[in-house]
C-alpha cells in the first residue's frame, strides 16, 4: 500500500514539472521491490518449478549447439538402456510407445517425378512397391513399355539398367560367399564372416554407381560401424528406493546403437507427409518399461549422430543394420516364435531411426522444449544378410517429456515393410532366385533426394 501511495503522489508531480508531449507513453516507474517469485533453493514444489525453468532458460540461451547438448545431458541419473536389436517379445509396441511413433505398413507414397525410370517401366506412378518380379521382361524388351513411364522430367534421364545393378549385387555376393577363400567363421560370429562384408561391398558399389544420378550421394559421407546415441525423457515415475525415494522423476531412456553402415548427407531429405499429419495411433502400455525387460544404468548421456556437430554432412540419409547371430531366424523358428521375426526388424528400424533423426534434430538446436519446426526424414535397411526390410522414419516431434507431451498432437511416423529375401541360395558360383524387387527398393532408397536437386 505504501508503494501505491508513493506512486500516486509521484505521478501528479511528474505532470506538474514536465510537459508530456501527447502520444509518448508515460515514463515507466521502476518497481521499488523485486518481483515476488518462488525461491530457488527451498524444498518445495514451486522452488522445483523455478529451478526447472532456470535450467530451461539456460539451455535455450546456450550459445552453441555443443553447449546446449552438454547442458541437456549434464545431470546423470539411472536410465533405461534401449537396445534396438533385441529379442524381447513385442518390443516394437513398447518402442513405439516410448518414442510416440505410428507404424504404417508398406512404403510411403512418393511423387511420380521423384522415381527413377527403370528399363522395365512401373505400372502405376503412385505404387509404393516395385512391379511384380518376372512379370516384365527385363533389359531390351522393356523399351516399348518404357513409353508408359510417368513424369515429364523422366524423359531427360537415361534408364537405369537393372541388369547391371543385378550383376553388381551378384558379384558382391559371390565374392564374399564363394570366390574369396576365407577361414572358417568364428563361433557365433557368422555375420562378420559373410553378410557383413557383403553388405559393405554392396552398398559402396551401389552408391558409387548411382552417384551419377543422385548429386546428394556424390556429396555424401559413408561411415563404417559408426556410433549413434540419443538420450530423452518420456513419462514420469516415482523413485522406488534410495535417498531420493518418493520423488516424481521423468523416465529417462538412452539408445546406443552401432549400425553396420550409414550414409550422411549435407542436405536434408524432403518431408514425406506434412508435419501435423495423423496416420494412426500410438500404442499405450500401462506397465513400467522394466517389464519389457529393460534395465537401468547410469552413465554418460550421449547424443551423437555419427560425427560431431562441426561436420557439414549433418543430416542422415540411410542406415544399414545387420542383425547379429543371436537374432537369426532359425533360432526363432526353433523356439516357435515365428511372429517375433518381424518384430525384431521393426523394433530395430524404429529405435535406430528415432535415435538418428532425433540426434540430427538436436544438432540443429531443437530439443524437447524447442520442438522441431520441420520434419526430419531418414531411411534404414535392416537385414540379416539374406532378408531385407526397409524403413522410412519421419520425426515430427521431440517433445516427449511429461509436460510437453500434454498439448502435443504431433506423432512421429515410421513406414516399414516386412522382410523379403534378396536371393534364395548361392551355389557353385551362381546366385539362384535373385529378387529384383528388393534390389529395386534399395536403389530407390539410395536415389532419394531433396526436390531441388
Amino acid at each position, binding site marked *: 500500500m505504501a508503494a501505491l501511495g508513493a506512486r500516486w503522489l509521484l505521478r501528479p508531480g511528474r505532470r506538474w514539472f514536465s510537459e508530456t508531449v501527447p502520444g509518448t507513453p508515460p515514463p515507466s516507474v521502476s518497481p521499488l521491490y523485486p518481483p515476488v517469485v518462488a525461491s530457488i533453493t527451498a524444498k518445495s514444489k514451486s522452488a522445483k518449478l523455478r529451478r526447472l525453468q532456470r535450467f530451461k532458460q539456460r539451455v535455450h540461451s546456450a550459445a552453441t549447439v555443443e553447449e546446449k547438448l552438454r547442458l541437456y545431458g549434464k545431470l546423470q541419473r539411472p536410465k533405461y538402456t534401449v537396445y534396438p536389436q533385441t529379442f524381447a517379445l513385442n518390443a516394437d509396441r513398447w518402442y513405439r510407445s516410448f518414442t510416440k511413433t505410428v507404424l504404417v505398413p508398406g512404403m510411403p507414397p512418393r511423387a511420380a517425378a521423384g522415381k527413377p525410370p527403370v528399363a522395365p517401366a512401373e505400372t502405376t506412378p503412385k505404387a509404393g512397391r516395385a512391379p511384380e518380379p518376372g512379370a516384365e521382361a527385363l533389359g531390351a524388351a522393356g523399351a516399348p513399355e518404357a513409353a508408359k513411364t510417368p513424369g515429364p522430367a523422366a524423359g531427360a534421364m537415361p534408364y537405369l539398367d537393372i541388369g547391371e545393378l543385378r550383376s553388381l549385387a551378384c558379384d558382391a555376393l559371390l*565374392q564374399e560367399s564363394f*570366390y574369396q*577363400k576365407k577361414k572358417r567363421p568364428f563361433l557365433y560370429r557368422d555375420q562378420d564372416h559373410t553378410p557383413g562384408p557383403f553388405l559393405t561391398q554392396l552398398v*559402396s558399389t551401389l*552408391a*558409387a554407381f548411382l*552417384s551419377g544420378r543422385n548429386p546428394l550421394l556424390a556429396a555424401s559421407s559413408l561411415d*563404417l560401424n559408426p556410433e549413434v546415441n540419443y538420450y530423452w525423457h518420456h513419462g514420469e515415475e516415482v523413485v522406488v528406493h534410495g535417498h531420493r525415494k518418493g520423488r516424481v522423476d521423468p523416465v529417462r531412456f538412452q539408445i546406443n546403437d552401432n549400425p553396420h553402415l550409414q550414409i550422411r548427407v549435407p542436405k536434408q531429405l524432403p518431408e514425406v507427409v506434412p508435419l501435423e499429419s495423423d496416420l494412426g495411433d500410438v500404442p499405450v502400455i500401462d506397465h513400467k518399461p522394466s517389464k519389457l525387460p529393460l534395465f537401468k544404468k547410469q552413465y554418460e548421456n550421449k547424443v551423437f549422430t555419427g560425427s560431431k556437430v562441426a*561436420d557439414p554432412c549433418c543430416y542422415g540419409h540411410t542406415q544399414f543394420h545387420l542383425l547379429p547371430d543371436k537374432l537369426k531366424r532359425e533360432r526363432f523358428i526353433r523356439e516357435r516364435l515365428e511372429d517375433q521375426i518381424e518384430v525384431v526388424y521393426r523394433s530395430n528400424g524404429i529405435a535406430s531411426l528415432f535415435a538418428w533423426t532425433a540426434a540430427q534434430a538436436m544438432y540443429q538446436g531443437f530439443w524437447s522444449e524447442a520442438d522441431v519446426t520441420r520434419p526430419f526424414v531418414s531411411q534404414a535397411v535392416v537385414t540379416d544378410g539374406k532378408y531385407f526390410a526397409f524403413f522410412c522414419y519421419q520425426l515430427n516431434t521431440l517433445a516427449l517429456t511429461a509436460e510437453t507431451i500434454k498439448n502435443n498432437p504431433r506423432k512421429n511416423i515410421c513406414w516399414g515393410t516386412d522382410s523379403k529375401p534378396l536371393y534364395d541360395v548361392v551355389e557353385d558360383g551362381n546366385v539362384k532366385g535373385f529378387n529384383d524387387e528388393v534390389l529395386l527398393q534399395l536403389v530407390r532408397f539410395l536415389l532419394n533426394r531433396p526436390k531441388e536437386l
Partner: protein
Amino acid sequence: LFAGVRQAQWLTKTKLVEGLPPAVQGIVDNPAHGFQELEERVKHAVSHARLWDTTEVAPRREQFCPVLFENLMHICRLMAGKYPSLSKRMLARNCRIAATWERESILLQVRGLSGILMNSMTQIPPVASKEEILATKEHVLETFYPIAPTIDLQEVNVYKELNDTGQCFADGYPYSHPHTLFFLESANVRTDRFRPEQLRAKMLMFAFGNALAKAKALHGNDPKVLEQPVVVQSIGTDGQLFQFMVFQLNTTDLVSNDGVKNLVWIDADQNLYEKAQCVPEIKKRVVTKPAGISGFQPDTFKKFLALYLHGTV
C-alpha cells in the same frame, strides 16, 4: 626388412625409379578430372576421420587410419559417376597371398595377409616402354656386401611351394587382375608401426608377390621374360604419410642376376596434412593453434586418385 627398399630390390630383381611413372603423372596433371572441387571434400574427409568421428575428444590411430582410408576410397569410388568403367572394381579385405621364387639358389617366399586388395576386371597396361625394359639389362643390382641379402628373413622349411593369388580367390573370379594393394599402419603405439622405409619394402614385396602369382597363373610356371608385363600398384599409409608405388613385373626369370629387371616407381613420404589439432592449443589465454587441419596438401590426394583411376582412364 633390415635394409629396406634396397634389400627388397635385390630380392625381387628390381630397378628403382624415383617419382611416379609418366602415365600416372599424366593423370595427376590432367585438369579434366576436376581435382579442384574434390579438394574441399578431401578436407572434410580428413577432418571427419581425424576430428569428428568419435564421441571422445580425439580418435586414436586404430580408429582414424581405417576411417580416413574408407573416406578417401569413398570419394574415389564416387568418381564412378564420371567414369562408368570404374564400377568394374572390387575390394577384397584380408586376403592372403603366397608366392615362391628362386633367387640365386635361395628359395624365397612371400606369405601372409596382404592388407586390402583392389581387383579389377581389366589389366593395367604396362607403364614402361619396351626400350626402358631392355635398358634395365645394363642396370646392376646393388648388393650390400658384407650383409647377406637374406638378412632378417625368417628361414622356414617349406613343404609345399604355394603359388597363387588363387590361394585367395577361386577360379572363374571375374575381377581377376590385382590392381592396387593398400597397407594401413594403424597400430596405436609407434613402435608397433612400420617405419616408412620398412613400409615401402613391405609394399614392394607384396606387390611383387601378387604380380608374380598373377604372371604364373597367366603364363605358366616357367621362368621367362614376359611379353605382357604385369603391373600392380601399392599405396601405404599411417594416416598421415602416404607412400605410392607402381610395380611392373617384366620377367619371372629371377635366378640369375643379369638380364631384364623388374621396375618399380616409388613416390615416398607424401604428407596429406601437417597437423590435425583436435582441441585448440591455448597458451596464456591466447589461442596459438586453432582446432582443425593445418598444412593440407592436395597433391597427395591427387596422386591417390590418379593411382585409383589408372587403368581405366
